[in-house]
C-alpha cells in the first residue's frame, strides 16, 4: 500500500516538475544572433544623461532585433537609449531603450524594427539618465570596430550582443543545442549520443521511482517498528 502511494507520489511530483519545465521551456525569448566577441573586463565609456558612445562599422551576419550591453550605473539608477544606423549613410534603422537598472547588469533594448542581415551598421548608446552609466567592454587592441565617445575616438570597444528579432522557445532550440554540443567532442560523439542519453535519463527517472518504491515496500515489510531505531549495522 505504502509502496503504491510512494510510486504515485513520485510519478505525480515528477510529472508536475516536467510540466513546469515544459511550460518554462516553451516561453519565447530572443536567442543570440551574434556578438562582437569582446569581453566586458574594462570600463569602455562613462555616459552621463545625453552623452553618446558609437561603435561601428559592424557587419551584421544575420538579422537582429535587440541589443544587449553590460552596464554599471554609477550611484543612481540609469538607462540606455540605443540607436542603430547605417554606417555609410547615417540613416537610422532602428532604436530602442533599456530599463533603468541598479548595479552591474546585462541590459537588453528591444529595437522598434529589425536590422536586416549583411548591413554595415553603427550602434550608438546614449545615456538615458537619470544617473551616469558605465559601459563594460574591452581595452584589447585589434578590435576592428571603432569606438567614439562624445565624438572622440577611444581605444578598445564596448561589449555588445545582438539578439534575433524572431523569438524562439528553448524547446524549439533543443536540436540546435544538441548539434552544437556534438562539436569539440570525441569522434564517436554525435547527436545520437545525446538523444540516447536523454532516453537513458528517462530510464534513470523510472529506475529511481522503482528504487524508492521498492525501498518503501521494504519499510512497509518492517511493519510498525519503533520510529527511532537503535544505532544499526549496515
Amino acid at each position: 500500500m505504502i509502496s503504491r502511494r510512494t510510486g504515485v507520489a513520485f510519478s505525480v511530483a515528477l510529472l508536475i516538475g516536467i510540466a513546469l519545465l515544459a511550460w518554462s521551456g516553451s516561453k519565447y525569448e530572443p536567442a543570440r544572433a551574434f556578438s562582437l566577441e569582446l569581453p566586458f573586463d574594462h570600463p569602455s565609456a562613462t555616459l552621463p544623461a545625453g552623452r553618446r558612445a558609437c561603435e561601428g562599422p559592424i557587419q551584421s551576419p544575420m538579422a537582429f532585433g535587440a541589443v544587449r550591453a553590460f552596464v554599471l550605473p554609477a550611484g543612481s539608477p540609469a538607462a540606455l537609449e540605443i540607436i542603430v544606423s547605417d554606417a555609410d549613410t547615417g540613416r537610422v534603422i532602428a532604436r530602442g531603450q533599456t530599463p533603468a537598472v541598479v548595479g552591474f547588469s546585462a541590459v537588453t533594448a528591444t529595437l522598434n524594427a529589425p536590422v536586416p542581415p549583411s548591413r554595415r551598421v553603427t550602434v550608438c548608446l546614449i545615456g538615458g539618465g537619470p544617473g551616469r552609466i558605465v559601459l563594460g567592454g574591452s581595452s584589447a587592441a585589434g578590435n576592428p570596430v571603432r569606438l567614439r565617445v562624445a565624438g572622440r575616438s577611444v581605444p578598445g570597444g564596448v561589449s555588445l550582443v545582438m539578439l534575433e528579432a524572431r523569438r524562439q522557445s528553448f524547446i524549439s532550440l533543443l536540436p540546435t543545442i544538441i548539434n552544437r554540443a556534438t562539436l569539440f567532442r570525441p569522434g564517436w560523439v554525435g547527436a545520437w549520443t545525446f538523444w540516447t542519453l536523454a532516453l537513458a535519463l528517462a530510464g534513470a527517472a523510472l529506475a529511481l521511482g522503482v528504487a524508492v518504491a521498492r525501498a518503501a515496500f521494504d519499510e512497509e515489510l518492517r511493519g510498525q517498528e519503533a520510529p527511532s531505531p537503535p544505532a544499526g549495522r549496515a
Partner: protein
Amino acid sequence: MPLSLALLLAAVAAFGLMWALFVPPFETPDETSHFAYTESLVERQSLPGDSHRPEFSTAQTVADRAADASRAKDFLPAISPSWSAGGFRAYQTTARRGLSTSDGGGINPADPNPPLFYLYSAVGYVAGSAGNEFDRLYDMRIWSVPLLVITTLSAWLLAGEVFGRRRLAQVVCAGVTGLVPMEAFISASVNPDALLLALSGLALWLGARVVLRGCRRRDAVALCLLTAAAILTKATGYALVPAVLAALVLGRRRIAGNEREPALPQLGLPIVALLLPVLVWAAITTTLGRSLVNVIQPSARAHSFSVGGFLSYLWQFYLPPLPFQTPLHETAGLPVIDLWLRGVWGDFGWLSVPLPGLIYGLLTLVTLVVAIPVLGLLARIRDRERLELLAFFAIALVALLALLHVTDYRSLIDTGTALVQGRYLLPLLPLFGLAAALLIHRLPLNRRGPVGATMIAGLVVLQIVALATVGKAFYT
C-alpha cells in the same frame, strides 16, 4: 546488491555521463589546469611547475583556442563559445598533423596539488591518447563518473550504518548525495574534487562505523588510509583529520575493557597508515622544492591576521554587517547564501552559469525545511552512543568550515580576493543526505515513502533544470 541500490547507482551514473559529455570542453572550474597537470604526468612523466616551460602544451592551447574555451569562461554572456562545424573540422585537420602534447608542464595554479587524482585521471587520458585533446579530455571526464557512483554508494553505506538496513533512509541519503546537480557536475569533470568527494564519503561512513562498532583494527586502518588518500588528493583532505582522530578515540572507548587491546598496537598501525603516505609526499615535495599545500602569495597591501578581524569576517559571512563593522563585500549578497547555498546546489561553468533566481529561492526554502527540524531532532538526543556519533559529524563539519574560513580570510587580507566556493563544502554532502533521511525516518510510517519519493523526484527535475541552464548558457 539490493535492487534499490543497483537502480539508484545506475540512475546516478546515467546523469553523470550526461554531465560529462554535455558540458563544453574546459568549462568546469580550473579544468584547463587539472587537464594540463595530468598531461604533464603522462607525457613528460613529471609534475608541472617548471618555470621555464609554458603552462599548457601546444595541443591544449590549440584545442582551447579552437573551442574559445578560455575566452568564454569569464564572459560567457558576451562571448559565444565556438560552435562552428567548420572550425571543428579545421581543428581536427590541424590536430591530425600532430601537435605536441609534451611541451607544457609550466607553472600551473593546480601544481601544488598532490598527484593522486591526476594519477587516477591519467587512465582516462591514456584511453584517449590515440585521438586529439578532446578525446583525451572527455575520456578523463567519463573516467571520473565512477567516482560519482562511489560517492553515492558511500552515502548509502553511511545511512545503513546510522539507521540500520532501512532502505528508504538509505535511498534518500544516497539519492540526495548523488543527485544534487553540483555534485554530479563536479564529479563528472576533470577535477580532484571528484576523488576527494568519494574519499570523504567513504571516510564519513567508516568513521561512523568505527564510532558505533568500536575501533576494530581493519576498519581503523582503512579509515586512516582513506584519509591519507584524501590528503594526497587535495589539501582540503586535512580537514578530515580531527574527525578521524576523534572517531579512533571514541571507537576505542566503545570496545569493552577486557576486549580492548593496548593503545599502541590498536592505534599505532592506523596512525602509521595515516602518516606514512603523507610524510612520504612531504619528503618528495621537500626534495623537489615544491610547496606541500597551496600557498597564498600576499600582495604589497596585505594586512596581518587579527582575531578581531577574523571574527568580523565570520559574522559578515553569515549575517548582515553591524554598523560599526568595516564591510567586507565578499559577495554582492550574504556570502552564506551566495557561496555556500548557491554553490552547493549548483553554479556551473567556471561558476559563471547560475541556476535561475527563482530556483535558488526554492532551494533555500528546501534547505531550511530540512535543516531546521533536523536541528530540533538532534538537540533532543540524549543517548550517549548517538551523541558520540553526532560529535564525530560535528567535528568533521567544524574542521572543514574552520579550514575554509581561515584560508578565505587570509586570502581576503593578503590579496583582497575571496577564495572559498560552495563546492568546497561538497565533501560533507552525505551529511545533508543523512539529515534528509533522518527527517523522513521520523515521519509516520505511511508518509515516509511519499515524502522520500517527492524528494527524489524533485532532484530529478532539478537535474534537468541544471542541464537545461547549462545548455542555454553555452549553446544558444
